[in-house]
């Protein structure tokens, strides 16, 4: 048996095969590396208990659409079961260089759009104020740019990852 899982766009491969002697003992190969085998002592609706080298681990598991969410000892793990698509939301915190699309980092409500289409903005300038859970969050330009398109208006409710504003870098603008 082999499962492919995806975390932040990275593919992870888990092979697991029943050991001959015991029907609950699995031989594991993780990204090509053989691992300690695991006893799967109990598989329930929503929880699984393993024994790895005598150490019990209790996992809470939920499958949400294409994702599996797992909690073990207070920490959460998340896997996608299918490869990432090209147009998916970029991972937060991993952006590099100029970002032409300003996306909502969380579900919330647009408190104020602080720019207009065609306006030139500076690095760090606030574009949109977003409110979620009673806190204001300023979304800012990273680099000098011109506002190409604004997709939202004051008071709009927006989803995680929704494009709010599109920018054009000043340098690359065709005159």
């Amino acid at each position, binding site marked *: 048996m082999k499962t492919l899982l995806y975390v932040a766009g990275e593919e992870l491969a888990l092979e697991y095969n029943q050991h001959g002697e015991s029907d609950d003992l699995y031989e594991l190969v993780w990204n090509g590396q053989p691992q300690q085998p695991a006893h799967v002592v109990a598989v329930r609706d929503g929880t699984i208990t393993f024994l790895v080298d005598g150490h019990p681990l209790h996992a809470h598991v939920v499958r949400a659409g294409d994702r599996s969410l797992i909690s*073990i000892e*207070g920490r959460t793990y998340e896997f996608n079961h299918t490869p990432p698509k090209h147009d998916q939301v970029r991972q937060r915190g991993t952006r590099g260089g100029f970002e032409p699309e300003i996306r909502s980092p969380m579900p919330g409500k647009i408190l104020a759009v602080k720019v207009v289409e065609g306006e030139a903005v500076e690095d760090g300038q606030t574009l949109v104020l977003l409110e979620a859970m009673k806190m204001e969050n300023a979304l800012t330009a990273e680099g000098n740019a011109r506002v190409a398109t604004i997709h939202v208006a004051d008071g709009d409710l927006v989803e995680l990852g929704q494009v709010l504003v599109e920018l054009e870098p000043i340098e690359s603008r065709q005159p």
Partner: protein
Amino acid sequence: MFSKILIANRGEITTRIARTCREMGIATVAVYSEADRSSPHLYAADEAVCVGPAQASESYLNVESILAAARQTGVDAIHPGYGFLSENATFARAVADAGLTFIGPAPDALSAVGNKIVARRTVAQLGVPVIPALEDLATDPETVREQVVALGYPLLIKAAAGGGGKGMRIVREEAELVEALSAAQREAEAAFAEGTVYVERFLERPHHVEVQILGDTAGNIVHLGERECSIQRRYQKIVEETPSPAVSESLRQEMTGAALTVARAAGYDNAGTVEFILDNDGKFYFLEVNARLQVEHPITEWITGLDLVREQIRIAAGEALGFQQDGIRRNGHALECRLYAEDAAHGFLPSPGHVLAWQAPQGPGVRVDSGVESQTEVPIYYDPMIAKISTWGADREQARRRMAGALRQTAILGLTTNVPFLIELMDHPAFAAGDTHTGFLSEHFPNWQPGEQPHMLAAALAASLHRGPYRNGDGQTALPSQDSSTPWQQLGGWRLGS
């Protein structure tokens, strides 16, 4: 005594207040907004009334709607919880005008201490030290810019009506001032229906220490010791404890004495908290009075054995305190962690959504006050705090280890929460040493990332083998994809659809 109380709040505090009412034989009415139809607080009470749409201004802050619910259900009294209308003197007066009892300080005392600017002035006159501040800000930003020069940067903007970190902004340089001011005003307006802000000097690395007080309407007033609340992010507490590791017995005498002085001068009744900033030389400054039940009241309940909500209700009903200062014993050490739906790895950004699974910790010395259950919503409209875990120990170390264990027992799926962050916080040597101060997180956890993922392989195996509820993104049960790689047959089990 009252026969029925309306709780003008939501989430964990409504459930907590309803429990005490039930223990006292008092019926309860919960209110809920249209966004909170799945919230457990709705069914913690004996009756529930929808008070309006999702926006707090139209529901939980809607005085007319709350009072209409109170009339409709025939209550005697209203408990405001914390936040929302809890420190709103106008609301307290409207409750009284409707012939009902507001469970909190008398409106005049509420006004006196509730407006932080007024409170500062009063307290300074009593000889209790206050932090240098600028109270009368001009409306014109340019004038404000000049006004604050005398104070110097860094500055702290605070809401006059505020609390809970709402409407607060730290300003480290002049360029940030104007935008921070207007953001703080808007936040304060949204949170407290009162946008006035003021500016005070910002101390670096101090302790935030507060004293719980309790006074009856006959003027008897006692303190229940202090709480250390220095560990904060976004000016909001996330860990509290009592007693404070930073307060010696003699300092405790001074601070609790100052707190009682402030409360007496304000003619304060009911439960309240006098907040102080404590610097590293053992000097303390009055900060504000929180004229309500505090989020972190469970730790005081742990060490005193008192039920603060019960005391609030008894006091509001006109009963005298059942004890004097020397009858209050404080025993052991208690800690609280606030569980937030937020992403500690990305600026503690709120992370609302649908709770797909929730398992609370249990066991000796562990208390859970939860606002969520499995399959409930954490709406975008309200505070992202979803639960409080508090632990008691004979000493701080026992309480800390209990908390570390309780957090590891906690499972929450579907939302990003601060539980992994809290686990690392509890395990941190500086926290274990009691070296808490308001700069703790920026000092020890700058740009924290969930580095430790010790059970990645087991998690991957669980993802491969699970028999878990399959859910759509909105939490509804769905059919599993017919993924031929799941090993049901090998597990001796069954196969869905076969």
